[in-house]
């Protein structure tokens, strides 16, 4: 590798990430362009580029997207949501709490964007029926979807990437992250109780309208739903056992997806159209871009600097990674950030021979929870706020920041205490 290669790789990386942050050009377009420029300048050969793609992450994302695309057609989410709203007799605050629990659990098993895509429409139907502003309902759901997703391997794309690179499985994530996530969830719900509960007065007449909703009408395809519950249960069991059975998590997701496609008799072409292909190509391009930095030695250089800055002290490293990830992920897309941090942490392990497992948890907590800091911190935030906007309700960057950022800081503070107690 020549110094020209280093300059080219760094320049392409910085310009591409700058363009992704500026959002002037579609993020997938610019990432793929940057990755191909690396090939053009022979920083990477095509074989090296392919070797740098984490196909476990890609396979897991595609597999889960297929399962969710079919499951979405059943109406199961809407059924459960209406059932919950009726169970609490249309009480707005109780709806918010139970929908939050529902969203956090769903987000742990599906990715955050999918969860938001499923929960926001039915929430809007509920708030329309109650004739109340949807903001006090949707804002907590956005934040808990990011919180819930942090608890598992499959809940948030950064975790999928970390799991794939670090060899950490579904159970590892649950055992190490779910306890602190439950604590954070309870605290955040309490914060929202203080903020919104007193404003939640709705007349009995409007509550009665909720009782008139018929959850059975929401079920679009009962046989498909039964098959979906069977496949999803099987897939989750597969995730719990994949480490013991020596399967990659992507293998489990793809087997589940293939099985659901087969037994559902869904139109495969139509289901494959539903996959978020721009996201998949974005991931592929990022792996190649970071691969370029690895190949020219920039990642090793940064790892050395980080080790010398923290003098190899695990306490400082954990605090640095946790808080650094959280602040950066509040303002920037956490996926490119995590894509860069993964090889950096791996290099630290190689150079210092210390057990870096706490750093993976710090990265996961920081990158996933950091998304709650601002409106642009996570895709789920942007989508939910976009939906609110379409309904004429404005949740501005500042409004989001005023509540989201302190909650994010509180979550990271709780995570710091947890990591210190558990690992340091």
């Amino acid at each position: 590798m020549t110094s020209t290669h280093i300059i080219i790789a760094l320049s392409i990386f910085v310009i591409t990430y700058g363009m992704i942050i500026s959002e002037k050009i579609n993020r997938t377009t610019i990432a793929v362009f940057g990755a191909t420029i690396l090939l053009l300048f022979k920083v990477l050969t095509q074989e090296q580029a392919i070797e740098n793609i984490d196909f476990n992450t890609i396979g897991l994302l595609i597999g889960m997207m297929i399962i969710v695309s079919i499951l979405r057609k059943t109406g199961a989410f809407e059924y459960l949501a209406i059932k919950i709203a009726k169970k609490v007799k249309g009480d707005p605050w109780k709806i918010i709490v139970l929908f939050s629990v529902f969203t956090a659990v769903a987000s742990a098993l599906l990715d955050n964007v999918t969860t938001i895509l499923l929960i926001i429409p039915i929430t809007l139907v509920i708030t329309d029926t109650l004739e109340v502003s949807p903001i006090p309902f949707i804002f907590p759901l956005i934040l808990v979807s990011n919180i819930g997703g942090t608890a598992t391997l499959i809940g948030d794309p950064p975790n999928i990437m970390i799991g794939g690179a670090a060899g950490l499985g579904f159970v590892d994530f649950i055992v190490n992250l779910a306890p602190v996530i439950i604590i954070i969830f309870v605290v955040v719900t309490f914060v929202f109780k203080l903020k919104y509960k007193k404003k939640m007065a709705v007349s009995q007449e409007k509550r009665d309208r909720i009782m008139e909703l018929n959850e059975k009408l929401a079920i679009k395809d009962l046989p498909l739903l039964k098959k979906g519950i069977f496949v999803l249960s099987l897939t989750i069991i597969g995730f719990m056992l994949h480490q013991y059975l020596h399967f990659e998590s992507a293998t489990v997701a793809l087997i589940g997806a293939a099985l659901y496609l087969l037994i559902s008799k869904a139109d495969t072409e139509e289901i494959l159209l539903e996959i978020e292909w721009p996201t998949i190509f974005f991931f592929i391009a990022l792996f190649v871009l970071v691969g370029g930095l690895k190949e020219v030695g920039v990642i090793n250089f940064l790892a050395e600097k980080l080790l010398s800055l923290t003098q190899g002290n695990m306490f400082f490293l954990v605090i640095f990674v946790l808080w650094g990830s959280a602040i950066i992920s509040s303002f920037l897309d956490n996926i490119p950030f995590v894509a860069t941090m993964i090889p950096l942490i791996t290099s630290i392990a190689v150079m210092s021979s210390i057990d870096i497992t706490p750093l993976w948890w710090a990265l996961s907590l920081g990158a996933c929870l950091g998304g709650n800091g601002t409106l642009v911190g996570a895709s789920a935030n942007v989508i939910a706020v976009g939906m609110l906007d379409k309904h004429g309700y404005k949740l501005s960057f500042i409004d989001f920041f005023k509540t989201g950022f302190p909650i994010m800081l509180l979550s990271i503070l709780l995570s710091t205490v947890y990591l210190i107690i558990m690992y340091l």
Partner: protein
Amino acid sequence: MRNIINKAEVTEHTIKLQQLGAKVTVINSTLCYVNFNLSGLILQYVYNVNFNGNYFLERIRPYPLAIQEISSERDVVKIIDMDIHKFKNAMKSSHIDMFIAMAKQINSTFTTFEDTFLNYNIPGEKVEKIYKKIMALELEIEMIREKAKSVEAIEKSELNDKNS
């Protein structure tokens, strides 16, 4: 991102329509807009190609008219071609502007008619009066058509004259 927001919006509409008692089927499809400029007369069509292989064709300019549901893409082009041909012929007439104005008026009259009958309680004799007028108008159009020479026949005779 736009695609995801649209999907969420469709889901919301679906839930609301289901609660009204509808069975909603959501099908992926492609919507095509077709524009022609015939010397200043804009003809615009829209057709939808869905996954079930059906095509819904509609003319939206100069005045809206649902054409039909057809089963082949080739037929879409054929029907549009025939329609364009008819308009090209009609443009030779000095009455084209009047014809388009009348067609627009018929659409507008239908909207008023629907609004009146769906939103007001109309006495029976008034209903009958309007019905008779519509039938009379229809009859008059039929009579005019019977007495007039078809464009197809005119074209054939023009072709024969040219050949001879």
